[in-house]
């Protein structure tokens, strides 16, 4: 298969498979290389070639170019080493069960094409992270394969059910690998959905993808496994970097935690006070107030009702828009300004909504501190209009808790009771004065 092609070379070239070795020429200059995947943002008629030097370049294949395919490249293909396969059936008893929900825990780079292939098989993942099993077996159970922004409220009970099953099968602890974008929502949801937990449920993610040597995935995962083995913990937590270093990790309560930065490794913060503890040099250090394990057995405390919403107030938000947004919903969480305020022009629709039995709950878009209706007149009027103030709950946590409460009762009074009651330590009664770090 060679010989110059007199028709438009571009048409023929783009039908060639990735990894094909070709020589293209404009009659003056000849390029030899391997066809590699087209970049999404690449220009028109650009052929992407990996040259012998390892560099990728783009060549604009104008009409008049010729090409021919070549036999195998002279250079030996650069590929990853074979992965030892493990086929022995593995039991959950005494193991940490690692539930994967998507994103990439591990991936391999094919230097020949530049492609990145996610690694999903248990044996392959463990070969990737041999240190994971340093202190005991880890079993990997795929739940689904979804980017975290594609995880919806109906997925939360599915994950929770896998946790219940893992503990029933004798797991020592459960780790959930999850994309970081909505990790906080899932952590809050599992906090409410899982009752009588006999051990920790640890959500973990990575802010740097695993196709790079500096990925935080491996160290986060290792810290998460250490927390999952800790017998003092019986709640849902998130374990991620506590700072830019790879040797200190924070343990956040699932209802307190929020992603506060789009890219930093230490993006996750516990709002309103310190986290539950830290992992330092592989050692789990806990502060006061960690919820101890229950005797079990764990159960799924569902369902959830997705007919709830979260609305961020801003100065131009009209009453019409807010009312339209809340149509068909049984409840809505407002992220109000300051101590929990919205423009007074919203009072009318809120009054009629609460009169119809809709839950209207208030949180603060400041993200830290209480929503408090008593300080200003607007707050007092909102309170009189039937708005439920949810203290220092994060707007997201309040939203998740709303869906959970709606799932538990058709009666608005009962839903309000559930929302008000502290369930898993989500309210912080005391806001630490802070001090030198």
């Amino acid at each position, binding site marked *: 298969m060679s010989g110059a092609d007199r028709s438009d070379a571009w048409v023929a070239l783009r039908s060639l498979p990735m990894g094909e070795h070709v020589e293209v020429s404009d009659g003056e200059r000849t390029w030899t290389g391997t066809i590699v995947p087209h970049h999404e943002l690449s220009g028109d008629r650009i052929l992407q070639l990996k040259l012998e030097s390892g*560099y*990728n370049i783009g060549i604009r294949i104008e009409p008049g170019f010729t090409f021919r395919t070549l036999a195998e490249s002279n250079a030996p293909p650069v590929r990853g*080493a074979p992965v030892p396969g493990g086929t022995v059936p593995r039991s959950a008893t005494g193991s940490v069960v690692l539930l994967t929900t998507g994103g990439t825990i591990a991936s391999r780079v094919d230097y020949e094409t*530049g492609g990145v292939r996610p690694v999903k098989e248990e044996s392959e993942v463990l070969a990737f992270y041999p240190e994971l099993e340093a202190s005991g077996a880890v079993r990997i159970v795929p739940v689904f394969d979804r980017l975290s922004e594609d995880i919806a409220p109906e997925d939360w009970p599915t994950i929770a059910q896998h946790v219940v099953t893992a503990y029933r099968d004798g797991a020592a602890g459960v780790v959930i690998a999850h994309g970081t974008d909505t990790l906080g929502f899932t952590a809050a949801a599992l906090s409410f959905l899982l009752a009588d937990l006999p051990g920790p449920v640890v959500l973990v993610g990575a802010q740097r993808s695993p196709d790079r*040597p500096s*990925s935080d995935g*491996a160290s986060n995962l290792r810290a998460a496994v250490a927390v999952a083995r800790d017998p003092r913990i019986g709640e849902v937590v998130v374990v991620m970097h506590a700072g*830019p270093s790879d040797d200190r990790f924070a343990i956040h309560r699932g209802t307190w935690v929020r992603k506060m930065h789009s*890219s930093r490794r230490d993006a996750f913060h516990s709002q309103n006070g310190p986290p539950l503890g830290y992992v330092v040099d592989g050692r789990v250090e806990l502060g006061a107030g960690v919820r101890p394990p229950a005797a079990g057995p764990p159960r799924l405390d569902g369902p959830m009702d997705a007919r709830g919403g979260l609305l961020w107030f801003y100065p131009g938000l009209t009453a019409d828009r807010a009312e339209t947004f809340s149509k068909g919903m049984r409840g809505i969480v407002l992220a109000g300004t300051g101590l929990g305020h919205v423009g007074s022009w919203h009072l009318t629709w809120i009054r009629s909504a609460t009169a119809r039995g809709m839950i209207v709950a208030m949180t603060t878009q400041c993200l830290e501190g209480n929503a408090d209706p008593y300080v200003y007149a607007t707050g007092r009027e909102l309170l009189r209009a039937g708005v439920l103030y949810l203290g220092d709950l994060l707007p997201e946590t309040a939203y998740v808790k709303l869906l959970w409460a709606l799932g538990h009762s058709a009666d608005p009074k009962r839903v309000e009771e559930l929302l008000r009651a502290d369930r898993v330590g989500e309210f912080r009664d005391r806001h630490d004065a802070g001090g030198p770090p």
Partner: protein
Amino acid sequence: MKAGLEVHQQLATGKLFCACPSELSDDVTLSFVRRLRRASGEGLAIDPAVEYQASRGFSYRYEAGPSNCLVEMDEEPPHPVNPTALDTALQVALLLHARPVDEIEVMRKIVVDGSNTSGFQRTALVAVDGRLDVAGKRYSILSVCLEEDAARKSGGSDAEVIYRLDRLGIPLIEIATGPEITSGAEARAVAEEIGAIVRSTRRVRRGLGTIREDLNVSIEGGHRTEIKGVQELRLIEQYVEGEAARQSVLLGIRDELRRRNAPPVGTVATEVTDGFADVTSGPLAAASRKGPVLALRLRGFADLLRSPPGTDERLGRELAEQARSIGLRGILHSDELPGYGVDAAHVEAVARRLGLEREDAFVLVTDGSRERAERAIARVAERADRAREGIPGETRDPLPDGRTRFSRPLPGRERMYPETDVPPISVERARLERLAESLPESTAARRARLVREYGLSEEIVRQLAAADALDPFETLASYGRSPGAVARLLVQEVPGVALPPGIVEFEPSVDALDALLAAAEAGRFAKEGIPNMLSAFAGGAKDLEAALTVSGLGGMSREELEGLVEKVVRENARMIAARGGAAFSPLMGDVMRAVRGRRDGGEVAKLLREAIARSNPAA
């Protein structure tokens, strides 16, 4: 001999993938620790360089400061490529007659020595197929790349390497020549010419370490080695010639080993600690030694570890470098024994222990840690074994004395994959046309013009270019200063200035130099006083008057000078009467000592001659 160059020049355009300044800073405001994983779980054995780095551990501390943001900390994705840096790289490509690619794709090149927080260096191929003519010979330019500089080592211990992040992300233009260089002098000339071309864009950083060269050298029958990170242009010749000599010696050793049928070198060491119990001095002295003494037999290596006559290269040094690379002080080998506190009886005993035959040699190693001593033996054995094949592919570090030292094995094929966080850049024709129009005058054309316009010699212009002083030369000349005086100032007087104690750098502004020359021309002080005046400026004198005071050159008026001359002539009237015109020389010396450079020497001579003539009209 065949050699090729890779020239890396830092740009002063701001960093390549973020908005930080491309400047170094010694302020550290934050430090943090990272571990780099071997790239994506692949086997390490594939790449000897990566494996070697891996064997040295993976924990790194980074220091960040005012030249850093989250991008260098690997806490934020890279921003799109700095357009000014890319324009500069494209300009350099055009100046080198290279062909830009149609679309530039940024790659990740795996580097796990910790010098990049990401674990890779971002690099992009910008252009290929250029050429460069130097002294009538044509060299090929294989590629022009644009890449980010790495962090610089600022300290560390066995357990942890410390890097400063200020340098990370500074744009580097990398220019690779073909292997057509055949001597050290050529290598230096090509490096100088490339440096001048890159500087002509006026967007480069200046100073030591801002331009670095990698030298690829091989000789017939040898193997390519890479001398990496040469900062001193003037040592290039020595490095290149020295490497050729080293390879030649190693090939000679290989031939001799083959002639002797030397078998593969075993790696099993023999412990000979008790044989040295009575050694009282040297590295094996029982009192100072903290661990075992291990011996390794090298079959067929007798007399091959020392330098062959007339050379300075020796295999023993190469073996010692291997031991040093993992922290040992060195080795002892049988070609240098007895010595170092070891006597003939000790040597004899070790030879018996190892069952040594006539053509065999041995190596002794000691270290506080037995494990490390064993690793050293393994490395020494491996290196000795490679001697049977010739020259191992190595990366070598340049040393300040013009020699080089083993650094690590030559990396395999670069492990690169696309940097998906940075969009590819289409190189539009309009951009190239715009750059082509604003291209700086080529360095060759500029030199020819300077010779023509200013009547300078080609040699002086070459020296101005080598001193990176063409710009200040033209500026000062355009201010009306004498071209000859300006050239002397920039080529000799400024580079040769005697720096006052505690001052390490002196970069006078063009305006300061202009004022200096103008004052000398106006007779404020003598031309001979220029070095002293420069020293005064280097020491911090803030203006001309201050410099005149500090250097003691200020404050001699014409009247004072005339008075001084009259006085000297009066006091020596008898000698003038006796010797006539011949009195001039000794008296001129006296007067000049008193003038201390405050007035021009020609002026003094003229006044003195006139005064002598008045005193003795016959003279």
